């Protein structure tokens, strides 16, 4: 787990079944987004398929969602996979508001994603 005390967002990255799995924890808001964005973009820049696990994210605002959008676009440009797993109803509501539930590939778990791919 990342322990950068300057950031309200914690994360850990695991290499699982061909994916970099980024597990964020806490709130991804105006204060936490710059850090979360850096983590997401670094995964894509490393040319790895990436899955963002949001199960421990209690709140994500539009800035956090924007970073997910940016990461997804960069991944698509590089023909990499990028998906979301374990998202709460609250996060899903935020995505639905901006019609992004139709854009992202969303699965209940990493296993479900692997089975679907």
């Amino acid at each position, binding site marked *: 787990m990342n322990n950068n005390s300057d950031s309200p967002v914690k994360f850990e990255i695991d290499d699982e079944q061909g994916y970099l799995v980024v597990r964020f924890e806490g709130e991804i*808001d*105006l204060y936490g*987004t*710059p850090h979360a*964005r850096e983590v997401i973009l670094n995964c894509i820049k490393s040319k790895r398929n990436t899955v963002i696990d949001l199960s421990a994210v209690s709140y994500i*605002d*539009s*800035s956090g*969602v*924007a*970073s997910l*959008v*940016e990461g997804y676009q960069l991944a698509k440009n590089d023909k990499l996979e990028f998906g979301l797993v374990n998202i709460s109803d609250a996060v899903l*509501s*935020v995505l*639905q*508001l*901006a*019609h*992004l539930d139709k854009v992202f590939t969303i699965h209940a778990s990493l296993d479900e994603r692997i089975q679907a791919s």
Partner: protein
Amino acid sequence: MTNQTETQASAAIKVEDLVTHYGSTRILDHVNMQVNTGEIMVIMGGSGSGKSTLLRYMLGLHQATSGSIKLLGHDITKISSQEMDDLRKNMGVSFQGGALFNSMTVGQNVCLPLHEHTTLDENTIQIMGRMKLSVVNLGGFDDLMPAQLSGGMIKRAALARAIVMDPKLLFFDEPSAGLDPVAAAELDDLILRIRKALNTTIVVVTHDLDSTFRIADRITVLDKGKILMIGTVEEVRNSDNERIQSLLNREARHVEINADEYLKELTGQKE
């Protein structure tokens, strides 16, 4: 029932014993109300009832004569201008005329609060702005100028700007004014979707009854600067208060004349 609801729920906005004046004229007269977190409160009343004034005081635009207004626990009648500036980051406002800057594109207008109040990366800001335009069904319109938009589109662009920072409190001044019934209904639907997705506390000032009944969780009815009633849509509909029924039935206001006061007013002797 209303009072019990208010005390048990968490108050996002609490107005206590608010008295305001314009010059020597009292506009709001000992107003008490509470808006709970995630609630849509519609403030309605006839012209001159004080509803727009109440909104302006909630926004911290004027100094009250007495009383308090707590937004997210902060009494805005007492806090410093710096604290008010910080609090405004949690507030979105959609003004009646849209209040877009005509010299800026729609996208620049929407992103303006992000440029002013955050240090987010420009890519993040641009995506956020486009997302919010998509929320209000104006996706792809970011490069247009406000003059190229219809009245309804301007209202929606203004709403996109109001919600671009994901505010906890969202205020609307006559959102449906000047809109055709379909555009007004679409705006109502947007307000409901935003509340559902973001649990935003929303205050709407309007005299549009159709809109009020579509979106309100509760209604505050103002008349001559005083609160006539605070209640659910059904409670207000079923009220036997004569003034409220006049408002609901769109009846012309009966003008009460105080002969002495009227004479003083005409002759310029009123204090």
